[in-house]
């Protein structure tokens, strides 16, 4: 079930092959994406976690189509952003974040179906897992972590951590649905945002597109690193910053979906993130 009143976090412990889904109301103030990812990094800091997270608008609105990856690379916290279909699948798995910690004794393939996790061996072909059309496939191929056989993250941080943790691949299937109370307003807002595609800083291209983005630009393949904390907490595309730094639009989107964020929550976010970084650095 998609519950927007709390952040739902799925933790996977590779050491003993266990998983647990928990809801955290007190994490709402971190909004999502890098804000939520850094806080979860702090909570699980002694376990060297890999934190994959989305923002409150992912899956619901156009151009909010990236997924945040927060990790610790030799004492330096890195925040990366990957395109593709993952954020939409995470939303419809009912998850705000996936935290992976520990190390698998043998190469592990992680099959996630909403909040249920199956730990499989390396002999499993990731492309045979999950439900076609409702899944995202992450595989580790030719020393590169690939989402949907195409999208990547900058540098080699994710590859290094996948290797350290002995993760061979991950498949996520999302089968939940959501209906906002004011559906007419939601549809109207969706159309308004989609019509603003001319404001994006990329041109339409012939490349694979991220889910919920029509552009098919050439920039999304390589992902993003760092950037504006509001955009990265919403996990919107950095090339849609004219839209997703518009506070009026952001609040319209949040309120239409039923979130209870206030202007103070958004104003306090950079400070919260700064404090969290200080604690884990």
């Amino acid at each position, binding site marked *: 079930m998609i519950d927007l009143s709390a952040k739902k976090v799925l933790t996977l412990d590779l050491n003993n092959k266990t998983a647990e889904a928990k809801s955290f109301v007190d994490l709402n103030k971190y909004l999502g994406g890098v804000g939520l990812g850094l806080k979860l990094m702090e909570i699980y800091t002694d376990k060297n976690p890999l934190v994959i997270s989305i923002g409150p608008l992912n899956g619901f609105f156009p151009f909010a189509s990236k997924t945040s990856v927060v990790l610790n690379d030799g004492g330096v916290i890195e925040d990366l952003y990957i395109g593709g279909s993952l954020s939409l699948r995470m939303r419809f798995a009912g998850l705000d974040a996936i935290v992976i910690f520990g190390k698998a004794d043998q190469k592990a393939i992680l099959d996630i179906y909403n909040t249920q996790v199956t730990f499989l061996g390396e002999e499993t072909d990731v492309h045979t897992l999950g439900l076609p059309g409702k899944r995202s496939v992450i595989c580790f191929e030719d020393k590169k972590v690939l989402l*949907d*056989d195409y999208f990547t993250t900058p540098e080699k941080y994710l590859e290094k951590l996948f290797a350290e943790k002995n993760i061979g691949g991950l498949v996520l299937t999302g*089968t939940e649905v959501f209906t906002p109370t004011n559906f007419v307003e939601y549809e109207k807002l969706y159309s308004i945002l989609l019509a603003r595609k001319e404001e994006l800083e990329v041109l339409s291209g012939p490349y694979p597109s*991220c889910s919920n983005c*029509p552009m098919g630009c050439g920039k999304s393949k390589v992902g993003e690193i760092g950037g504006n904390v509001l955009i990265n907490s919403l996990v919107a595309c950095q090339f849609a910053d004219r839209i997703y730094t518009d506070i009026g639009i952001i609040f319209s989107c949040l309120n239409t979906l039923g979130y209870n964020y206030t202007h103070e929550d958004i104003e306090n976010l950079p400070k919260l993130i700064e404090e969290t970084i200080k604690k884990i650095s």
Partner: protein
Amino acid sequence: MPKILKATQPENCNGCELCLLEAQRQLKKIGLEESLIRVFRNKAANSQMIENCLEIDPRINMLHIEKISEICPKGVFEVLEEKDENTGSEQISQVQK
């Protein structure tokens, strides 16, 4: 005459899934479950290229299919009109691209 939605240029699909999300919105829901359009991403055989395959449930034709066709940024769909079999001419004709 009934209109039908057809993917006449599926090779142009970029996998954005706007079509299936539009179809779901017309059914007053957001998500992938029980969608009347499915988009399958596959790596093309002997190539690093990504192919997107579309599966369309015929029940899609009960929806506002012009709107679904129009939301596609790559012109993958056409709305076609089924001709009366008695005319003896082509079975379908294009009414909108």
